[in-house]
């Protein structure tokens, strides 16, 4: 063991900044990270053991306990439940005789819950040793377990046909489908790899690239909507020996999966966009920060990088431009939604816990390794290539005045055709629902759990930065759904699980709010609970990052737009009820001492 761990550490130059890679390699090699391995890392990286462990214990897919020869991670998103997740969970537990969170006694198979794995259009889905199994049914579960017991390989277990499009590529061969339902400039088939790098960049300066991006008015596609051109300009102007380009492919917002599709179908476009950005800001190193859930793409994406390098689209003197050197490496996360926040992502890139940084300074001044860094979404880089290819002016004809261009939506939930749809900004929700075949719609979650839950009286609203801003997650709920129980509660649990814990507010308040929601769902609600929820949620606004600030949104937004759902659960004519249940609270002690609870009803 010692030799292998040492080799892994040396493979990454015994660099503490590469701790994530080291940990992931060890986890994959052994199924867990042992105390001995921790001690070795501490010794070779000159850290204390608890320092190594604090990174391990931050990430969902890293563990100091054995996760099983086969580690099964079953998605627990709201949409997974809508499509039968409970039955799949029950089937796994029944078949294996263990509960989720446990490993079979022989150490063969472990069952684990995991937050949205970016497969909302093909749920229920699970990740088993980095391979994705979609559209699970109880029958498939039994078959998979049987085959595992028979010692079959994972590839053999995927006995169904591969997904559509590039998912059949020899390096992918996955069951995942891209489900592209509508194409625009990004997903279009007319993209020619390298055209921008080889034929356009040699004729324009980096400043001209930035001017063109600014002219297009494109804003960041991750959801926050910062003007991309300004970000690039700030970074170019910031002083530092190195400038970095980071692509944020950590799409963890439940319900988004468009980056998965872009990276599957158009990875060259994204990488070309990163190189383009490198040219613009004067950086020669790019990092794709890819969520661990998409580990199955590793070989495929690396093969694409290799091809691009062979064609001089990456490497030295790209496109024959003297001194334009740019390389890209892939850095995997290890299961933490908060790492989608750009400064948390940087911490993770440096091998640390993904705790967001205080701003200022912003990453464009002090980013990766304290150097000026731009961090953009997958979709932003892809779009930038089309802007430089066709001009900023051309780009502004799409979308609206304040939201130019197209947006790729990840649409899932109760509709006929879940998948990705590239539309012009300004699309309204009503048209969207008609486009995807959604009928009897009760609500749409715009922008994922951190976004807004809207009802039919707001379906006239349009998608754009000034109205309904979205990173692209659109989840549709039919009238048959129990919004508070099946959706809002699930989303609150998500935020509780995914808080980094750094801020006192986000570490504690979502749980307080969740408990109150449960109290209301249990029939113990009173009128004051609703005003408390609204009032208490405000504390979250004092959190450092977007996760914390929006962690109350599932409740806040449903309370605002679906108040009657709460009101009908409240007790009439009861002013005080903190949920205390005398009968329930004496059960444990009475049982233990051997007596039957009796209750007097005198005054």
């Amino acid at each position, binding site marked *: 063991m010692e030799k292998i761990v040492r080799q892994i550490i040396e493979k990454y130059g015994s660099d503490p900044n590469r701790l994530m890679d080291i940990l992931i390699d060890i986890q994959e090699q052994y199924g867990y990270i042992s105390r001995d391995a921790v001690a070795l890392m501490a010794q070779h990286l*000159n850290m204390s053991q*608890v320092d190594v462990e604090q990174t391990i*214990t931050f990430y969902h897919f890293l563990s100091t306990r054995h996760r099983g020869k086969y580690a099964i991670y079953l998605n627990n998103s709201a949409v997974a439940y809508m499509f039968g997740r409970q039955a799949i969970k029950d089937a796994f537990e029944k078949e294996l005789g263990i509960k989720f969170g446990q490993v079979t006694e022989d150490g063969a198979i472990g069952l684990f819950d995991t937050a949205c794995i970016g497969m909302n259009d093909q749920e229920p889905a699970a990740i088993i040793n980095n391979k994705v199994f979609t559209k699970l049914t109880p029958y498939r579960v039994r078959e998979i377990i049987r085959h595992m017991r028979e010692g079959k390989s994972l590839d053999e277990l995927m006995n169904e046909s591969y997904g559509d499009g590039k998912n059949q590529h020899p390096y992918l061969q996955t069951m995942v489908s891209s489900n592209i339902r509508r194409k625009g400039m990004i997903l279009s088939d007319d993209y020619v790899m390298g055209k921008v790098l080889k034929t356009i960049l040699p004729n324009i300066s980096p400043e001209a690239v930035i001017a063109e991006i600014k002219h297009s008015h494109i804003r960041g596609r991750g959801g926050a909507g910062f003007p991309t051109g300004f970000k690039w300009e700030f970074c170019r102007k910031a002083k530092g020996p190195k400038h970095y380009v980071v692509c944020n492919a950590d799409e963890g917002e439940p319900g988004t999966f468009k980056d998965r599709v872009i990276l599957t179908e158009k990875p060259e476009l994204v990488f070309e966009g990163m190189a383009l950005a490198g040219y613009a800001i004067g950086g020669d190193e790019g990092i794709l920060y890819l969520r661990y859930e998409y580990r199955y793409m590793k070989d495929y994406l690396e093969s694409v990088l290799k091809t691009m390098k062979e064609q001089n689209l990456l490497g030295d003197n790209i496109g024959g431009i003297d001194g334009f050197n740019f390389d890209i490496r892939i850095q995997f996360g290890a299961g933490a939604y908060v790492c989608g926040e750009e400064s948390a992502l940087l911490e993770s890139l440096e091998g640390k816990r993904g705790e967001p940084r205080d701003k200022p300074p912003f990453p464009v001044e002090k980013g990766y390794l304290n150097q000026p860094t731009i961090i953009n979404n997958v979709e932003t880089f892809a779009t930038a290539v089309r802007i430089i290819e066709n001009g900023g002016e051309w780009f502004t004809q799409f979308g609206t005045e304040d939201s130019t261009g197209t947006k790729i939506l990840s649409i899932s939930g109760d509709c006929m055709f879940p998948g990705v749809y590239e539309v012009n900004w300004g699309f309204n929700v009503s048209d969207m629902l008609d486009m995807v075949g959604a009928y009897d719609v009760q609500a749409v979650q715009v922008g994922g759990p951190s976004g807004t839950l809207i009802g039919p009286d707001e379906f006239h609203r349009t998608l754009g930065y000034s109205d309904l801003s979205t990173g692209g997650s659109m989840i549709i709920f039919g009238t048959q759904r129990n919004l508070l129980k099946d959706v809002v509660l699930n989303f609150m649990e998500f935020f509780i699980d995914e808080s980094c*814990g*750094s801020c*006192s*507010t986000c570490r504690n308040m979502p749980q307080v709010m969740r408990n109150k929601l449960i109290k209301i769902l249990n029939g113990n609600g009173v009128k004051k609970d609703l005003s408390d929820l609204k009032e208490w949620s405000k504390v979250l606004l*004092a959190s450092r990052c977007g996760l914390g600030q929006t962690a109350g949104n599932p409740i806040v937004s449903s309370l605002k737009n679906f108040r009657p759902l709460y009101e009908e659960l409240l007790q009439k004519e009861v002013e005080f009820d*903190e949920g205390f249940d005398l009968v329930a609270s004496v059960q444990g002690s009475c049982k233990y001492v051997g007596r039957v609870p009796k209750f007097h009803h005198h005054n």
Partner: protein
Amino acid sequence: MSSLIKFKIDGKECMAEAGTFIVEAARQNSIYIPTLCNMPGLKPKGSCRICTVRINGRLMTSCTTPVADGMEIESGSLDIIELRKSIVELLFVSGNHFCPACEKSGNCELQALGYLYQMMVPRYPYDFPLRAVDASSPKIIKDQNRCILCKRCIKSIKDEDGKSFFAFRSRGNHLEVVLDQELAATMTDEQAELAMQNCPVGSILVKEKGFATPIGKRKFDKQPIGSDIHV
């Protein structure tokens, strides 16, 4: 060369050197902004959020935000004070803070903020989480019931190689601060004492030592926290 700039806190004209963090700049102008995770000499992290102020309509932590020329800072308004009070209450209910049984009572910064804001009862339900007390190391007791995850021990207590004795474990509401077993064996009396001093609450206590100063004669028994700053 010092470059003094002007800014305002709650309308009061203040001056400080450019780049000074607001909390320190306020102190220099005799204005107390409460803190818990912040400690002079340590890199601020802005995690307790107690020092939140409003600048240009945005909530910012004053321990991590430098003052800028012309900046208008809102710190003493009713809603900011209410926010700080709610955070104090949130910290009280999410741990197990039994003041009557705590060695740090009277010297505890969290408690002192409870006094400052006259917290008669937290507005949130008590969580009563099950937390461990780690007394396995030779010098100190680490009581997780009282820990408020401020990171002060993590940042300040290191061995001669710069390795941390303390670190975070896990995340979210499972987050805790743990002590390195191996390093704990090498901890000196001075490091143990410093760890206890730097802990704003009673989560780190030096073994076999306690109640040297009786209750009633401690730091915050007679004078509110911040009264040395505020005039």
